[in-house]
């Protein structure tokens, strides 16, 4: 009977394509919007994850997220180093500065100042130059996307000529020399990300009493980073978080303090709702139009359980095809746009695919429930009514 169910489903091409379209549209909208939402949320904390050489971030205990950080006195670095369980600790500056190019163009950038000696917090993937060049006077390294933002005229010739290092520009009226280009995760705002030596940040950013934004620390081998964080908090009175904790704290701030989740949530819900509406209505019409046929099958000895099985099979097939097409289109979208600098970091993760799959399953089950009820309460004697 499964074969008959599939024949019935595909026999009416218009309704079949309508059903598949509804589910495809819902799957596309949900997976695409959910992926962008997840990508944007990941961007908010991407600079935290980019620092892979330190496990612990120490900061002012009123910090809510990475982009709004007051400075701490340099003495805090020594205090953290003195906490039992801390293998090493280094300072890190993170803030914003304004870059001015010789052409007069300017752009606000995210600036990291990493420890001059150890370069803890420096980018891990250098695609032009060397990370050690940060120790040179006025040296800065910029991320790939930032390079393309600041020098778009170089983009067409990048493949042929590579990145042009040695470019000179200004930050806060001080000279900078580009010594490298790195890979960095895209930040929440599409700003270039620049790295320089900590000692130079005092030149590049407006003067404040305290410059040090974070202390990056590494626990002794074998020690639980969470326990070391608690030790640091007890000894220094500063907030100490593991990398993951700080990442999720930052995401939590954006989730709770911005309209981003609400806006994306509405779109995702609309995708789900439209999917349920289109699939449900079409499926219901499909069932109603086949009611006499279902009645005949019941009269001829087909049990309710097998009819339910037929309808669920039809729903699952539609769901599977719609899901595959919708998620496939989303994958094509991200494949087509992954070279676009402003869309970097946005992609579809397996959790989104799984979540979309669950939502699609819910859509087709909800859509088929009404039809199942209609068929279950159908009296087979209806076949004798002209």
């Amino acid at each position, binding site marked *: 009977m499964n074969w008959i169910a599939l*024949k019935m489903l595909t026999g009416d091409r218009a309704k079949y394509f309508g059903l598949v379209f509804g589910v495809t549209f819902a799957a596309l909208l949900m997976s695409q919007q959910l992926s962008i939402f997840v990508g944007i949320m990941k961007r908010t904390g991407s600079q935290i994850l980019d620092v892979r050489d330190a496990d612990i971030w120490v900061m002012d205990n009123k910090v809510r997220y990475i982009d709004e950080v007051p400075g701490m006195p340099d003495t805090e670095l020594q205090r953290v180093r003195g906490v039992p369980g801390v293998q090493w600790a280094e300072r890190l500056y993170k803030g914003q500065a304004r870059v001015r190019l010789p052409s007069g163009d300017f752009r606000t950038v995210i600036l990291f100042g990493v420890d001059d000696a150890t370069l803890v917090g420096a980018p891990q993937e250098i695609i032009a130059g060397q990370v050690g060049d940060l120790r040179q006077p006025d040296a800065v390294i910029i991320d790939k996307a930032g390079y393309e933002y600041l020098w778009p005229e170089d983009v067409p010739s990048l493949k042929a000529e590579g990145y042009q290092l040695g470019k000179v520009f200004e930050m806060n009226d001080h000279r900078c020399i580009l010594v490298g280009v790195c890979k960095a995760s895209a930040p929440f705002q599409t700003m270039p990300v620049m790295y320089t030596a900590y000692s130079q940040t005092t030149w590049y950013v407006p003067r404040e009493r305290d410059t040090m934004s974070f202390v990056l620390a590494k626990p002794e081998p074998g020690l639980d980073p969470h326990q070391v964080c608690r030790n640091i908090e007890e000894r220094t009175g500063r907030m100490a978080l593991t990398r993951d904790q700080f990442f999720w704290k930052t995401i939590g701030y954006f989730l709770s303090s911005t309209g981003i989740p609400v806006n994306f949530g509405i779109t995702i819900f609309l995708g789900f709702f439209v999917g349920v509406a289109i699939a449900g209505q079409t499926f219901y019409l499909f069932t109603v139009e086949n009611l006499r046929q279902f009645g005949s099958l019941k009269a001829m000895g087909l049990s309710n359980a097998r009819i339910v099985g037929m309808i669920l099979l039809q729903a699952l097939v539609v769901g599977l095809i719609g899901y595959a097409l919708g998620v496939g289109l989303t994958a094509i979208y991200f494949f087509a746009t992954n070279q676009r600098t402003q869309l970097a970091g946005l992609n579809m993760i397996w959790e989104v695919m799984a979540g979309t799959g669950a939502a699609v399953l819910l859509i087709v089950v909800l859509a088929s429930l009404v039809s199942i009820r209609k068929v279950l309460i159908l009296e087979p004697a209806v076949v004798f009514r002209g």
Partner: protein
Amino acid sequence: MSTAFATMEKHQTPLDLPAVSCRNITKDFGTGEARVQALRGVTLQVRPGEVTLLVGPSGCGKTTLISIIAGLLDPSAGEIQILGQDLRALDGRALVRFRGEQVGFVFQQYNLLPALNAAENAAVPLLIAGRPRAEAVAEATRMLTTLGMGERAAALPVELSGGQQQRVAIARALIHQPRLLVCDEPTAALDAQAGQAVMQLLRRVALQPDRAVIVVTHDSRVFEFGDRIIYMSDGRVERVEDKAA
């Protein structure tokens, strides 16, 4: 299988017993002031090996009676035995199985599945019974050939005339060798010539010594094909015309 159903197997009912036996069957729809009494104490018998016509004006209770005989509706009161089986003793699952094995249906509007071709439509009862698809379709094709529809076995219902569709429906009704064939206005949607052909076909192919054929109709042009004609009026059997008597 229920105990009641286990007592009923194909070809066990003696041929001299009635295929259908109804006594004082009543059927009410609705309650209170909206209550409608569709059947008001119907008593009749249908013998195997005969074509029994159930005739009468619209609203006289023919459809209700045939639904009860086919096991699609429960009577409000009265006794009914089909092929020696008390239908009221069967639980839901056994009743569905009883219908699937013992009853064949021919509907006024054919009720063919539009996505299946003629052979596949005719094979549906075998598929419901769990027969493999290829085997069922092959058998249905042979049945269609018997009915003169062999060349149209691959045609979709929409590609068939009304008479051809009804022949496919008859093939579907007979494919599983039921012992009771219930036909609801089988000629109503056909012109006179096609209607006559369908009735001739029913007599030629469907009628067998151990099979009873009940035809609900108000088409007086097909009365000649019945062995017995049961006239109904206002929910009752008005008279019975037995041609053999």
